[in-house]
């Protein structure tokens, strides 16, 4: 076998091996999207109930809660970035990081300090590579978020929000995550979590001209709001994590599908080249044989 042919054959082999891997990852992601989507749907009644309740209290009571009121001076803003733990998901993590950078830029131009909370190993890697500081980071389980993690994140940001500026408190909290729109589209989403703007977790938000009934609060509106708001924050963060997980699987499936397609193209091109090389080798051998036989015959 000629040297050229051997090179082509080995490249075909390697493309085939890669394709097997990407194909398997594509199938795994495809099956996990379903599950992730179901989890988003299953958590919807919870966030809906909480959103309704919070809206009702906020509408019908004049309670001033620290979590809802805008502060006079906004010095520090916290940005929570939701990326994935693993790569091979196309632009999933990088588009989120880019979005977060833009948001940070904007906040800085408004004269605010920006601190970061990171979710997912990719964000942590991005920050540590650039030797930049983050307040807190959570890694592991971004493809199957647990409510406990959401609670931890919520506790951490609400605690920071309640602290004074001098003690490292923050005045604003933003979430940056990928929203799952469809199998082929995941949109980076920036949401200001605190101070609260109450929005429904699901898109699109229908204009709510519904009148909330006059509730009776037990024990009283302030206590109810006190108890509800942290739960609301948790549910928003959990929702962001679930959306991000679904989006991650969809992005990975898309990336792996195009990788498999590329491998197919490579295999086809190299097979053609290999065939060419083999054919010209045979042609050369034949002409050598014929030439040799001619030479023997004329030597007699």
């Amino acid at each position, binding site marked *: 076998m000629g040297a050229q042919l051997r090179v082509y054959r080995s490249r075909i082999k390697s493309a085939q091996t890669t394709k097997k891997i990407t194909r398997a990852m594509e199938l795994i992601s495809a099956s996990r999207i379903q599950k992730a989507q179901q989890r988003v749907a299953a958590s919807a*009644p919870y966030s809906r109930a909480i959103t309704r309740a919070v809206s009702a209290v906020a509408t019908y009571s004049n309670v001033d809660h620290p979590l809802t009121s805008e502060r006079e001076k906004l010095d520090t803003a916290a940005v929570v970035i939701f990326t994935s733990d693993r790569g091979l998901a196309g632009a999933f993590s990088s588009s989120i990081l880019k979005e977060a950078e833009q948001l940070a830029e904007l906040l800085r131009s408004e004269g605010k300090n920006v601190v970061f909370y990171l979710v997912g190993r990719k964000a942590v890697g991005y920050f540590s590579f650039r030797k930049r500081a983050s307040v807190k980071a959570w890694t592991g389980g971004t493809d199957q978020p647990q409510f406990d993690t959401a609670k931890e994140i919520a506790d951490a940001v609400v605690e920071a929000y309640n602290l004074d500026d001098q003690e490292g408190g923050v005045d604003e909290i933003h979430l940056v995550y990928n929203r799952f729109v469809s199998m082929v589209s995941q949109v980076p989403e920036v949401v200001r979590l605190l101070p609260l703007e109450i929005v429904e977790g699901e898109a699109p938000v229908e204009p709510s001209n519904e009148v909330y009934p006059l509730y009776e609060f037990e024990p009283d509106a302030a206590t109810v709001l006190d108890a509800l708001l942290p739960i609301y924050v948790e549910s928003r963060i959990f929702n962001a994590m679930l959306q991000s997980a679904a989006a991650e699987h969809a992005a990975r499936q898309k990336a792996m599908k195009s990788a498999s397609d590329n491998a197919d193209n490579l295999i086809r091109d190299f097979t053609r080249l290999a065939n060419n090389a083999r054919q010209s080798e045979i042609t050369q051998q034949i002409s050598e044989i014929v030439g040799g036989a001619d030479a023997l015959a004329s030597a007699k």
Partner: protein
Amino acid sequence: MARPLNVSVVSADQQIWAGEASMVVAKTVEGEIGILAGHEPMLAILAAGEVRVNATSGERLVARADDGFLSVENDTVTIVARDAELIK
């Protein structure tokens, strides 16, 4: 019992139970409360304890709903808790 109550029990990651019931008994931070159809709209914080639902099918459900809340409006009762679960 003319009208039934629409009851749903919801936890963070799923809806645990939904259906019609004749009465819901819950323990709020102020004490036990029984809710029948036609109850005024209410939002209450639940205390540690059980929520009992008498379903119209004759079933009697008991759910654990710590750190949750209860909302009543228009004969719709929603019991929401982070880790609600049915005991039976």
